[in-house]
């Protein structure tokens, strides 16, 4: 290649590319230069001076992490002068870090209980440090042995170890002030929840006025822990556990599909999760869920044995007995009396087998996945584009000139998608438009924040579209060439005049126009939408509008442009792909819309696809109460039945004649079941997940909870099918199921298990016996997964769908309907827009210590439009109580602001509250039960006195 240059390092010729720093070039070539502040995921910094080298023809010893390579450069990493500088640097570092062990010749021999002839304090020993054997400082001193004159003297800082915050322990006595953590927080995450404090010899990492992380705006993503080279920052859970081995797999908490390296100890417990630095979906990032939410797989409360109901009581049984009981109980309920509910942590293979079982063995189309409570957000995309899927990749967002996020609490629910957006906004290369009646983290980063009245998002999007059409901002070349249905769409936009939309949504007309211009004119623009504030039934319109906006402005099929639906559930995309949906069969084909696909499937399966309509999860439990559905098979225990989105789930289950549940834990569902199977969690499974960017990623078995006699849902479904005498369920493991999927689902053609293991990024690193940041040490090869539709092996990946054509050739623009504001119950005249942010500027939270833990407390503040406040005879600072129809009451004070649209009450809680709640929860799997922030009707009345907050 033309842009390759050659440099010489320690006499070895190294070919590299311009723009790289010397330390990177050396590492790539397998030549180790010690470093402590440098991290491959971050910008060069040059603080620790451990990586100094000598350059021929240049004076002094420059730091190789900030020195760009130059053609013909001759680098000497082992020169006397450089080594001397490093020795002094390390000596100085060790003068403030407990180093009794680091400078001892017995460093590799001692155990925790050994009597130390050097009288090193127990707390100062390496063996009692949580980062022992994962410590880069220890490795570096091994590489660079120190001959200290008085090896046991050092200045111990004597600081209190911060252990009261959720998830994190911070021991700044061990900090070497490399600033990796503060840079990660600032540069990678855009939060700046920690910074450098004081100066000169007192410099340390800290928060404003030494506050806890709950008060400093921390999102508990763990990025600082992942880069910390010493024991200063550690995860609280399993703090002292050492990994026996590691395994790369996919996080099961949300549709981003982060590749993580899981550390597993000698007892087969998953003890730590480290996001993979070079994974295409997460680029070394994770969030509080993925980093800290895996503990439930090790839980003692896991179900251990199959249970069968005998004489009204659940009793332990063998697997054979339970399978026979399930088969016998399900057999009489074939046809529409049967329903299948899978969970979003099921693999593609399990989901495929589940719907095949329901359709071919039971003859029912009532199949759904528990997280799919908002199918509307992809139905509209299918109407226009042909697929129930988004069109772009996550990290393309860094290249978008404009991003519009509609009603999605993205930084909590699909956290990592927010990272490229926040970075680009901070770098000034991106304009962010947020459409949300709630205040969420991203509204802070928005250049335009539109706050429509809850439930009027589709109207607002229609207004934006009409504004684009009316002002001649549409890309007519693209529309004419690539889309049909333009005239019908434009005709249906009749009612969406700027004034009408402004009146309906409460968003000023000029702001709508401004947003429309930014989205249409900025350059490649992305549209992300969740529909959190929408009312059921309007989401399909919303997603049609989203697709139409993208098509009309030509924002599909090019880098940085596209749409992404923001749903919940790790494998929601897989569920749509696998046809785990009443209306569609595998391959994004509607049962009634594509008879050929139905025929083909029927002949492949050896049984016809049933034609009768099945119920989706929002109606399933109504149907059981009505007696239409008599038997159910529920996979996993992850139905979000607490939040009411699926109606009265437990009442529905009570009405069943026969319920089979697989579950990792006992729950209200298993209590009602007739047969219960102990299910495997994602950590025990092999299979694939498909993420929000349609990337099929391999899930590899991480560990096996030894207390539990569990099997995967695939095994359970196949065994029941076998017991019922069905053919076509005798696969030899998930790879064979994937083979069948690749035949049945055209988008998965070319994907196989073997190929998924071959598709990887090999990163050349220095040998592992030399110090490496954990994230780098784990990064030898990363399985990148395959995005569907997948290119033939060997071809370079094509990340954007629809570059040349849409699924059916052209995009079919759909006419859109005007959905007026939801009707207001006069009892509850206002809408509560409940948002959540990391930190609210202008309001200091308080922290109280309950037991041993910090809890954040703050008085609630209800922000009202002055007109609403005047009507209710409320003024700034008045104590009020807000009551929702379900009877929950919150107390707080009133604040007035014109920025809140009439009819809306805005309330902001702190992310810290959620972090505490999740961290202190007794639930085995608390992350899965985080309630979504939905708008709710509310009544506000003056209260005697405020009791909220401290």
């Amino acid at each position: 290649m033309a842009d390759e240059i050659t440099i010489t390092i320690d006499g070895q010729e190294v070919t590299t590319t311009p723009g790289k720093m010397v330390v990177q070039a050396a590492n790539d070539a397998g030549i180790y230069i010690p470093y402590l502040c440098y991290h491959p995921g971050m910008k060069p910094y040059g603080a620790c001076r451990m990586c100094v080298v000598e350059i021929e023809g240049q004076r002094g010893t420059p730091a190789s992490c900030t020195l760009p390579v130059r053609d013909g450069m001759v680098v000497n990493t082992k020169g006397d002068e450089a080594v001397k500088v490093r020795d002094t640097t390390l000596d100085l570092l060790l003068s403030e870090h407990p180093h009794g062990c680091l400078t001892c010749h017995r460093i590799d021999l001692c155990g925790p209980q050994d009597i130390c002839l050097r009288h090193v304090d127990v707390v100062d020993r390496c063996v009692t440090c949580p980062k022992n054997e994962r410590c880069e400082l220890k490795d570096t001193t091994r590489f660079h042995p120190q001959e200290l004159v008085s090896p046991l003297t050092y200045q111990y800082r004597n600081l209190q170890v911060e252990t009261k915050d959720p998830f994190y322990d911070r021991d700044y006595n061990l900090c070497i002030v490399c600033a990796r953590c503060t840079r990660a927080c600032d540069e990678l995450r855009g939060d700046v929840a920690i910074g450098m404090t004081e100066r000169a010899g007192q410099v340390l990492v800290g928060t404003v006025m030494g506050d806890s992380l709950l008060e400093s705006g921390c999102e508990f993503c763990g990025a600082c822990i992942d880069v910390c080279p010493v024991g200063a920052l550690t995860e609280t859970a399993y703090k002292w556990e050492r990994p026996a081995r590691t395994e790369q797999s996919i996080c099961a908490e949300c549709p981003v599909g982060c590749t993580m390296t899981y550390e597993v100890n000698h007892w087969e417990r998953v003890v730590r999760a480290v996001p993979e630095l070079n994974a295409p979906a997460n680029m070394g990032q994770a969030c509080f869920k993925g980093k800290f939410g895996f503990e439930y797989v090790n839980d003692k409360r896991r179900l251990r044995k199959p249970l069968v109901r005998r004489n009204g009581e659940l009793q332990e049984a063998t697997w054979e007995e339970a399978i026979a009981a399930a088969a016998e109980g399900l057999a009489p309920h074939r046809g529409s009396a049967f329903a299948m509910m899978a969970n979003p942590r099921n693999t593609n293979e399990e989901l495929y087998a589940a719907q095949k079982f329901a359709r071919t063995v039971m003859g029912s189309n009532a199949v759904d996945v528990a997280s799919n409570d908002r199918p509307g957000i992809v139905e509209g995309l299918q109407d226009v584009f042909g697929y129930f899927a988004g069109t772009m990749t996550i990290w393309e967002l860094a290249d978008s000139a404009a991003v519009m996020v509609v009603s999605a609490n993205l930084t909590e629910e699909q956290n990592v998608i927010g990272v490229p957006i926040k970075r680009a906004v901070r770098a000034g290369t991106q304009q962010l438009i947020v459409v949300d009646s709630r205040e969420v983290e991203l509204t802070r980063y928005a250049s335009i924040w539109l706050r429509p009245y809850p439930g009027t998002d589709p109207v607002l999007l229609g207004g934006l579209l009409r504004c684009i059409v009316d002002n001649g901002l549409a890309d007519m070349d693209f529309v004419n060439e690539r889309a049909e249905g333009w005239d019908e769409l434009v005709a249906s936009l009749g009612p969406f005049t700027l004034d009408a939309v402004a009146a309906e949504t409460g968003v000023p007309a000029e702001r709508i126009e401004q947003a429309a211009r930014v989205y249409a004119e900025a350059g490649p623009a992305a549209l992300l939408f969740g529909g959190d504030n929408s009312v059921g039934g309007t989401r399909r319109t919303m997603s049609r509008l989203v697709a139409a906006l993208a098509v009309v402005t030509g924002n599909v099929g090019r880098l940085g442009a596209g749409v992404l639906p923001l749903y919940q559930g790790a494998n929601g995309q897989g569920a749509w792909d696998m046809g785990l949906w009443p209306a569609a069969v595998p391959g994004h084909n509607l049962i009634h819309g594509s008879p050929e696909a139905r025929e083909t499937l029927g002949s492949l399966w050896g049984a016809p696809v049933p034609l009768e309509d099945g119920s989706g999860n929002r109606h399933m439990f109504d149907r059981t109460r009505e007696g239409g559905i008599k038997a159910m098979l529920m996979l996993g225990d992850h139905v979000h039945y607490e939040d009411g989105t699926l109606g009265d789930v437990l009442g529905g289950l009570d009405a069943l004649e026969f319920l089979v549940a697989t579950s990792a834990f006992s729950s209200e569902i298993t209590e009602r079941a007739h047969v219960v199977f102990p299910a495997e969690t994602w950590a025990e499974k092999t299979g694939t997940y498909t993420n929000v960017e349609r990337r099929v990623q391999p899930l590899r078995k991480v560990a096996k909870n030894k207390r539990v006699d569990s099997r995967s849902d695939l095994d359970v479904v196949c065994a029941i099918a076998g017991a019922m005498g069905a053919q076509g369920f005798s696969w030899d493991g998930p790879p064979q199921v994937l083979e069948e999927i690749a035949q049945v689902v055209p988008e998965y053609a070319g994907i196989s298990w073997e190929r998924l293991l071959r598709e990887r990024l090999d990163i050349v690193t220095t040998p592992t016996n030399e110090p490496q940041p954990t994230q780098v040490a784990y990064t030898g090869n990363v399985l990148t997964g395959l995005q569907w539709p997948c290119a033939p092996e060997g071809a370079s990946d094509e990340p954007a769908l629809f570059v040349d054509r849409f699924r059916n050739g052209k995009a079919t623009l759909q006419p859109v309907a005007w959905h007026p504001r939801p009707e207001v119950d006069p009892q509850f005249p206002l809408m509560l827009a409940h948002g959540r942010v990391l930190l609210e500027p202008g309001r200091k939270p308080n922290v109280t210590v309950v037991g041993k833990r910090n809890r954040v407390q703050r008085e609630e503040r209800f922000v009202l439009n002055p007109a609403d406040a005047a009507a209710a005879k409320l003024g700034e600072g008045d104590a009020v109580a807000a009551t929702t129809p379900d009877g929950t009451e919150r107390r707080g004070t009133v604040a007035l602001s014109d920025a809140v649209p009439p009819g809306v009450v805005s309330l902001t809680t702190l992310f810290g509250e959620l972090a505490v709640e999740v961290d202190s929860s007794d639930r085995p799997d608390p992350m899965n039960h985080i309630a979504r922030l939905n708008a709710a009707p509310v009544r506000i009345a003056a209260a005697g006195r405020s009791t909220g907050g401290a």
Partner: protein
Amino acid sequence: MTTTPRPHGGSASPGSLRERARRAIEEQPSTTVTVLSSLLAAQDELGYLPYEAVDEVSLCTGSSVNEVWAVASFYPNFRFTAPARHLVEVCWGPTCHVLGAQPILQGLVSHLGLDGEGDTEDGSISLKYNTCLGVCPHAPAMSFDHELAGHMSLDEAVTRVEGIRAADMERES
């Protein structure tokens, strides 16, 4: 960090620390407004930097509170606790040192129950060392609320300090 204006318009009651800090920051005379200039303006107004002032600086400059804190904590000139009501300075320049500043200093420190420079527990006196008050012919020198006093002795210093305290008590009662 961000360009969004304060989300709720920010309610700060008139005369509160937050409101005073905000006004001082907004009305600062410097042509280039930085984190540092804003911190100085806030400290000039309030005499110290409470959390509210740090938070207001972060809002006005679009930085995170932790970034502002990184700057504020760097400079020893900023203080983060309310100063005492009266400032007593003891000069320990070379001339004062030679002519007996040390016994005065040590005597005052122990009289006020301090470990060195600092504020008394009752919040009445801030004791500071001054490198030179500029009145060497009158050494040893002190200053009481910026009023210079020369040819000091320990007794004289204690009398003056107690006088200030007594006047304070009287005013309060």
